[in-house]
């Protein structure tokens, strides 16, 4: 009997059901034909009245997620630190799923497992029971207590609960067990902000709780924001070339991109992450750099206020100009000269820009992402001679608007800026415009397909491709990688095959 084949060799459901025998290779997605019926026969543009997000109470296709997620991201970057989420199980399930999708790494997050009764009686009992389990089973060095909407709404007194729990557990487990654990409370009610603000608040609470001033250490503090492990490695690389010692607060480079080597410790902890003693020592540093103003700026401001430590808040060192600023501030703060290797790396990026500007210049780009990254990408696009046409951020930020306008003014561009808007609005602008390229995260992938505008992936989150989390976008070498992505995407989409060989 011949195999019934249809539609370019692909099998319909009927074909599958009538197969006498399934081949040993099985039947993969690419061999199956799954008929999809469009919901409506043609694209119907939405009612123009509902396009501006400011006119709607509902958010459609949000470009942000919840505030506790940002605080969890921060806590995951600390060595032997486990976030304890004072909320329902879903408040940890989704973040853990998101971490795994982006990084393909295990992430341990504890939960107070709120149920209906917790909402009535409060989360005190679940909190103390949860901490006990966590300490006995996982021996963490730091527990990052993170609240969510529900615990904030019912008014859980976390500071009071923690005091009670410490007393109770000290009696039960002994002071030496409890002395080995530090607690950091971060309040993150999602109705007051997004993941961006969650990270920002965690930067402040970790420093408030742990940083002390004793003797100067000649180091610099770096609060990177929600950038990739590859980015953080690039920052370390720059510090090394400049012969500067630095502490990176929330160093996910060795907690969310780890080698597989046996044997592994039990319970599993990545060997990296910012050490608690290093966070303590951050009170003694020369200067703090918060690379993303909205993600970590609060930490730098706290140190500035508390220890009179100079703070440089933003811009994210992506592209030439912003990286120049970062390097110059580093040199100024430490008195070290700009290393020759750094000048070479800069030169290599400029060389690549000089080699490729005929591909990039004049391209109209739509950008969407977290405010700091979207603003940084806007500047880099301008440096490549591209024209940012629509720049959107999922989280509202004054700094974002300021930065984008400054860039637009400098390069004589007139982008439409969507501050704290959703992707529904951004998408509408994109479809009405003539856009050559999208710079955005994986959430822009559907729009990219539908509008047939190629997408260069950057920012948070990227969950539909492999390896982006290992790459750096920051620094001169990161700019090189991003430039390659942009130019190759343009070559794929804008140039006929016989015109790409030079």
């Amino acid at each position: 009997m011949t195999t019934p084949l249809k539609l370019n060799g692909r099998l319909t459901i009927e074909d599958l059901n009538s197969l006498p025998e399934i081949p040993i290779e099985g039947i993969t997605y690419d061999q199956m034909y799954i008929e999809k019926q469009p919901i409506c026969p043609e694209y119907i543009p939405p009612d123009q009245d509902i396009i501006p997000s400011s006119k709607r109470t509902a958010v459609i296709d949000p470009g942000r997620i919840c505030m506790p997620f940002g605080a969890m991201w921060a806590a995951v970057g600390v060595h032997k630190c486990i976030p304890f989420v004072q909320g329902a199980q879903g408040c940890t399930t989704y973040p853990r799923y998101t971490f795994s999708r982006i990084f393909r790494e295990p992430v341990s997050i504890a939960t107070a497992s709120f149920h209906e009764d917790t909402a009535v009686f409060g989360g005190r009992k679940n909190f103390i029971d949860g901490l006990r389990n966590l300490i006995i089973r996982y021996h963490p060095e730091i527990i990052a207590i993170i609240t969510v909407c529900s615990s904030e709404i019912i008014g859980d007194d976390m500071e009071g609960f923690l005091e009670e729990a410490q007393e109770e557990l000290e009696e039960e487990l002994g002071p030496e067990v409890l002395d080995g654990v530090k607690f950091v409370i971060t309040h993150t009610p999602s109705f007051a902000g997004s993941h961006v603000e969650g990270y920002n608040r965690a930067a402040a609470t970790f420093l408030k709780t742990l940083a002390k001033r004793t003797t100067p250490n000649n180091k610099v503090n770096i609060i990177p924001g929600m950038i990739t492990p590859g980015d953080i490695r690039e920052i370390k690389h720059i510090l090394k070339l400049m012969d500067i010692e630095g502490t990176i607060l929330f160093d996910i480079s060795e907690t969310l991109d780890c080698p597989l080597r046996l044997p592994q410790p039990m319970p599993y902890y990545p060997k990296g992450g910012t050490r608690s003693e290093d966070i303590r020592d951050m009170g003694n540093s020369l200067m703090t750099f918060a690379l993303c103003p909205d993600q970590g700026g609060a930490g730098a401001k706290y140190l500035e206020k508390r220890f009179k430590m100079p703070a440089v808040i933003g811009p994210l060192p992506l592209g030439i100009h912003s990286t120049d600023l970062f390097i110059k501030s580093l040199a100024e703060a430490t008195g070290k000269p700009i290393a020759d290797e750094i000048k070479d790396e800069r030169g290599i990026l400029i060389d690549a820009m000089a080699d490729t500007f005929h591909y990039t210049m004049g391209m109209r780009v739509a950008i969407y992402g977290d405010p700091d990254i979207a603003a940084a990408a806007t500047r880099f696009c301008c440096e490549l001679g591209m024209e940012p046409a629509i720049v959107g951020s999922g989280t509202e930020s004054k700094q974002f608007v300021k930065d984008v306008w400054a860039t637009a003014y400098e390069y004589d561009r007139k982008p439409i800026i969507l501050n704290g808007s959703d992707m529904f609005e951004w998408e509408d602008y994109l479809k009405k415009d003539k856009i050559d390229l999208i710079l955005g995260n994986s959430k822009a992938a559907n729009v990219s397909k539908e509008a047939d505008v190629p997408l260069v992936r950057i920012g948070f989150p990227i969950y539909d491709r492999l390896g982006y989390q290992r790459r750096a976008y920051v620094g001169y070498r990161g700019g090189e990688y991003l430039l390659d992505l942009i130019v190759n995407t343009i070559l794929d989409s804008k140039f006929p095959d016989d015109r790409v060989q030079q």
Partner: protein
Amino acid sequence: MNVLHCQRSCTYISDLIKEGFEVPYVNASFFGIEQTAKALREVAEFFGSEEMKERAEQIIEHELEVISPAIEFYKERLTGKKVGMYVGGPRVWHWQRVMKELGMKVVFGMCTFAHEDDYEKINARAEDGVFLVDNPNEFEIEECLERFKPDLFLTGLKEKYLCRKFGVPTVNSHSYEKGPYACFRGMVNFARDIYEGVYAPAWKFVRDEDFI
């Protein structure tokens, strides 16, 4: 008749065709506004038809109308820029006129395959002080870049990367960057690619004192 655009490689065969078959030819350049218009007029003139002459004028008028706003845009931004050229042979004198139409000033020219007649034409079209090199090597190119500091160098792929290393933009003058450069509409592509070269933001970073 034959219409000759590349007057280096095509003249020999055109002469033979003319001798053997009595088919005449006209020389024409399809680069730039003035030269393309001239080519159309001369072809029409050759056939002597009033209809054809009228048609040529119509085409010229219409095409000028179509490209003028774009050409004005680029001319305004390119006027006064200095340009060096290193192309095969005839293209240098083809393009001397084109550069003038964009308000640019040719400061030096180089050819690999030019013969005496090419240099005669180049000289006839050149302003005083234009420096010419026959069959240059890389060192001579570097020296010219250093000495004349052009804002743009029109050259091919092999010299592109050398020149850009010295901070001088280039436009691929053999196979072009984006789109054809010939005739009226191609002139806009040419002007655009020149403009992008001269104004690419990369150049302003190159000379930052702190990173030299």
